[in-house]
């Protein structure tokens, strides 16, 4: 899968480079509705990101689709070229455009693609 890098500020203001695979590419590989498939009821799809400490957040599928918000959310496994460890990793989300850090889930363990059916 394609790997990308993104540089973001940490809480202490230092700039850190994260490297990993775009969330969009992982979802595409898993068969989630993206591109031409993302219309109608498919737009009720969301991604539930869960962490090792049971922390969880959601993203709407439209946030990552190129035709909608096109957010460059990364599933990172490296920080400044080194593997993430301990309370950071081994995987974490990096949401460069989020003002708050709460959705940049650390210790990411799973991504569930869920469709809301009413």
């Amino acid at each position, binding site marked *: 899968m394609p790997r990308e890098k993104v540089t973001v*500020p*940490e*809480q*202490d*203001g*230092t*700039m850190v480079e994260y490297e990993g695979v775009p969330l969009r590419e*992982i979802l595409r590989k*898993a*068969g*989630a509705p993206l591109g031409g498939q993302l219309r109608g009821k498919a737009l009720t799809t969301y991604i539930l990101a869960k*962490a090792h*400490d*049971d*922390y969880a957040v959601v993203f709407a599928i439209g946030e990552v689709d190129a035709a909608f918000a096109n957010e460059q959310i990364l*599933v990172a*496994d490296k*920080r400044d070229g*080194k*593997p*993430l*460890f*301990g*309370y950071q*990793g*081994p*995987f974490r989300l990096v949401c460069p455009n989020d003002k708050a*850090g*709460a959705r940049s*889930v*650390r*210790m*990411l*363990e*799973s*991504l*569930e*693609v*869920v*469709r*809301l*059916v*009413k």
Partner: protein
Amino acid sequence: MMRRFWVLPLVALAGIATMNRRALSAEPEGGAYQWNLPKGFPKPYAPADNPMTAAKVELGRYLFYDQRMSVNGSESCASCHKQELAFTDGRAVGLGATGESHSRSAMSLVNIAYSATLTWSNPEMRSLEKQALVPMFGDHPVELGLHEGDSFLPTLRSDARYRELLERAFPGETDRLTIANVTMAIASFERSIISARSPYDRYHYLGEDNAVTDAAKRGETVFFNQHLSCFRCHGGFNFSDATMSEADPNRRVEFHNTGLYNLPGTLSYPAPNVGIYEFTKAPADVGKFKTPTLRNIALTAPYMHDGSIATLEGVIDHYAAGGRAHDNPNKDPVIGGFALTRQDRDDLIEFLKSLTDDAVLHDPRFADP
């Protein structure tokens, strides 16, 4: 109703993760002052008109500890910033040379070079040189109680040691002992007080697995638990979101209302400690204060801006309750409360204790000359 049709486990790929341990090493620099910073610690900011020099740091150390710097010879900067207490004073609120109490707790000076703003609640106070003038000359409250024209400058000028220190610190200047030079030297000394070699640093950056206890290692996991959110404000290498460095000296700082009070009326915090509202006059800023560093936090009791919580256990209980005045309308949404087992609480405290840097407490470079 939800229908789940994919689950992508990431655990299987976890094997690629390896421990990222950074070695401490001296950083040779071209400039006059050797910061000797470990990796992971950026170069601190020093203003262009007051570059760091060893001579200014040394002069600043003498001034910092000199009780002739107060109106009645009873106090120095070190009276409220004691080395053995990580440059705090162990009191709930500071006490000036004339016996007047400050309304807030003396902040630690450890790693103050990395602080984007310097006081509990003044978002504009970003210069250590300017801040030094407040305890020296301030009247509300009186701290050192000096006045321009006092005898302290002539007294110091007649001291042969100061003449020597001044000549080295400010060579080429005709009148070396000026208020401006005094504040520049004190600021330089304060910037030199860097804490980067606590047991946690040795564990985290040097890979010394035995540097901290197993309880502290468990406590690290509690601290970085995303439900507790401690690290959201106390994050980064300096465990504070009010951190800056040479690379970003103008960084904007977030201040936080932690739900300590919720008094009826316009001001929900007891005056004069109303947070940055004192300066911004925005009602949403009532009760918002700076996030202090957690480095050496075990030594800086009592806690919070007014010393109103006596122990670390009390602080953790405060946050676990979502703030003791949890219904303050300005309370930061991050402080939502959490459940913690006794074991987790004890472990968290052990982690916080692992941030105590004995080297700073005993380093002769920072001691009373």
